[in-house]
């Protein structure tokens, strides 16, 4: 018997509209009971966790991670990346397809999702929207959907051509999954390595203009409109890592219009601005880049006012030798799974008053809905026993040298964090204890 009793914790489960002291019984990988404190005391269980003073929430869900396997296991593996996820309070992650080779067929998807890869948490994947992520020919959405795809994306690159994106949105609508778009008009960003503006000018770096992001978001929203009208379908566009005020405003308007648009914001885009590039710190290099302070503040507004649907890390591990080189040559991306909760609690909850229930929504229930993870993102009885237990008031400092990730490329080494993960439980198994 592997039952776990969790007593005296403060359960925050937005989908069940619960924010109160509750005891939980986990049995056979599911939530067996959620009761008033004291009620479950008599239950026999193999293990009891005293969650007094802790928040008990549905496990965090990240719809955007790069686990680098297959092909670049010197950066990360499914095992190490998901261990980092567990340490960060995540119980489900969605792997992007830009592996080597690109995940664009059911057999590659099967291989990735196979238990032999050693995933520590529940692993999902978004295969490529186009063959080889080359932006030309759609992959077999139907077959990939059957094999477990939770969405389609050419992440790392946009689906640039209008007609290809249109076809992808239609095929995804039929498969009832989102197209997750890396919104970057690459015709405007060749040779660019940070945000366009005075800072880039001073550093002598070519800058990515905000139009590069906004134009693709606006184009995709227009495609949604056209498809709804012409095809009678209701495609779901998910905009990845929104970083500019103009793009988030486009999303805001599209939602008001009733289109099916969701979006994510990465912790670094609400925690940092372009000043973090400093004297060519490659740990502040990612795509989309860190933007101006006004954009950062708009990302926070979007998280507070509900325009942003979720927080996603864009966890992108790279080896030291890749980051320790010329800024323009260094690859884009930073790790993020172990710092997302600590940053969100500090910056959004403590500093800006985002309610904890809203934070759990942004990091668990809402992402579960974006990619339709049945039975996850809530702790109602019968749901998967995916939980995170954290001490919301604990202050700590992130030390990259003890990261579970294989890589150390983070601008948050030595940064203050708020909220310490004490337990991560995935389908009834304790996968992390801090």
């Amino acid at each position, binding site marked *: 018997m592997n039952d776990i009793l969790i007593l005296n914790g403060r359960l925050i489960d937005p989908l069940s509209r619960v924010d109160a002291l509750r005891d939980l019984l986990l049995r056979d990988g599911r939530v067996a009971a959620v009761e008033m404190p004291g009620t479950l005391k008599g239950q026999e269980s193999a293990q009891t966790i005293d969650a007094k003073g802790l928040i008990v929430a549905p496990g965090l869900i990240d719809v955007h991670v790069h686990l680098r396997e297959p092909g670049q296991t010197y950066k990360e593996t499914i095992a190490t990346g998901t261990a980092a996820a567990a340490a960060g309070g995540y119980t489900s992650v969605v792997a992007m397809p830009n592996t080597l080779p690109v995940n664009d067929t059911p057999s590659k998807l099967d291989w990735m999702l196979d238990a032999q890869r050693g995933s520590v948490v529940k692993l999902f994947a978004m295969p490529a929207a186009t063959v080889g992520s080359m932006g030309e020919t759609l992959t077999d959405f139907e077959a990939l959907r059957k094999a477990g795809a939770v969405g389609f994306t050419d992440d790392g690159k946009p689906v640039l051509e209008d007609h290809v994106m249109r076809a992808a949105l239609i095929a995804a609508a039929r498969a009832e999954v989102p197209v997750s778009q890396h919104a970057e008009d690459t015709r405007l960003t060749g040779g660019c390595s940070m945000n366009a503006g005075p800072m880039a000018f001073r550093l002598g770096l070519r800058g990515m203009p905000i139009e590069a992001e906004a134009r693709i978001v606006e184009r995709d929203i227009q495609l949604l409109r056209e498809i709804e009208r012409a095809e009678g379908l209701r495609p779901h566009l998910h905009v990845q890592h929104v970083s500019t005020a103009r793009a988030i405003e486009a999303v805001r308007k599209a939602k008001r219009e009733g289109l099916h648009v969701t979006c994510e914001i990465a912790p670094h885009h609400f925690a940092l601005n372009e000043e973090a590039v400093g004297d060519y710190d490659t740990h502040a290099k990612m795509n989309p880049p860190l933007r101006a302070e006004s954009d950062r503040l708009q990302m926070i507004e979007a998280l507070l006012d509900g325009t942003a649907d979720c927080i996603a890390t864009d966890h992108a591990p790279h080896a030291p030798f890749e980051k320790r*080189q010329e800024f323009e040559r260094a690859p884009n991306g930073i790790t993020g799974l172990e710092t997302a909760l600590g940053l969100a609690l500090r910056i959004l909850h403590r500093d800006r008053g985002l309610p904890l229930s809203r934070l759990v929504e942004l990091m668990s229930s809402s992402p579960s809905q974006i990619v339709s993870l049945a039975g996850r993102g809530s702790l109602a009885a019968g749901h998967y026993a995916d939980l995170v237990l954290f001490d919301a008031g604990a202050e700590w400092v992130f030390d990259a040298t003890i990261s579970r990730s294989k890589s150390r490329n983070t601008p948050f080494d030595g940064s203050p964090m708020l909220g310490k993960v004490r337990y991560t439980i995935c389908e009834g198994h304790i996968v992390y204890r801090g």
Partner: protein
Amino acid sequence: MRRASETAAVSSKYSPGSLLSVGHLSVAEVSAILAETARIAALSPAERSAILRGRTIALLFYESSTRTRTSFELAAKSLGATTTLVSDKSSSIEKGESLKDTGLTLRALGAECIILRHSASGAPFVLARETGLPVLNAGDGMHEHPSQALLDLRTILNRLHGADKATSITEHSLSGVTVTITGDILHSRVARSNAMLLPRLGARVLLCGPTKLLPEDALGLGPGIEIERDFDRALAKSQVVMMLRIQKERIAGIELDLNEYIHRYQLNSERLLASAPQALVLHPGPMIRGLEISDEVADGAQSAIEEQVAHGLAIRSALLARALSAGIFKGQTI
């Protein structure tokens, strides 16, 4: 924007003899470099060659260069140092060796200072961090060319105030002086270093050029900088005019009508006579005669272009002495 108060904190991450950006230098340090330049220039060749005798300096050049490389090399040799030149065309760089490994190799071979020219902005910062050696930025991408700005400063001070006034400066040494920098500002590390250095000594800097080569973002380089797109109007206000070439190697994607450009921005005799008959003419080289500057102006009485080269040798001697005597060099605050 890097504030002056952050200067010490930023530069303390790097070996103190490094010169990566003019922004890392306090006015007192600039003054000390100018004084050292004058002191070394006044020495006999024999005295000079004792300064860095037995020391080893590496020149690491990932981009072609005539003036900068030769003057750094001759400066090092005149101080008695042993030099070695590594260029991307004739080294393991071609085989894919990283900047870090190239730097560590040079260090292991005894290099005590590396002079780096690189096509990537910020490359000297990487080299300085990875090797811990003093690194002199001899031009990095579109970012900076600090020794050029210092030699331009010495040229300006000598011509405007006389050689005896070029040895000690303050925040007001260039008060009342307007310097116009015209041309491909966007791609110019010379423009950036000068536009960040000269206003700190009281100069007003006017940047001039078409929007494609001079975006409004340039104003963010710091205080004391203005954009004046009318070249004649800028000239009329200027005591110094610095011309820049169009960097065809970095200009991909920008379409320019060269005839139109020449019409608006070429510095020629008629224009100079009409708007700035007394102004000092500078050009960091290489010049493209007939494009940004006419023959008569380049070789004319107002041109200090050859003097710039000579001052380059002197300034670079002082920078090398400073690099290899880090911590004991006067004016050094660290």
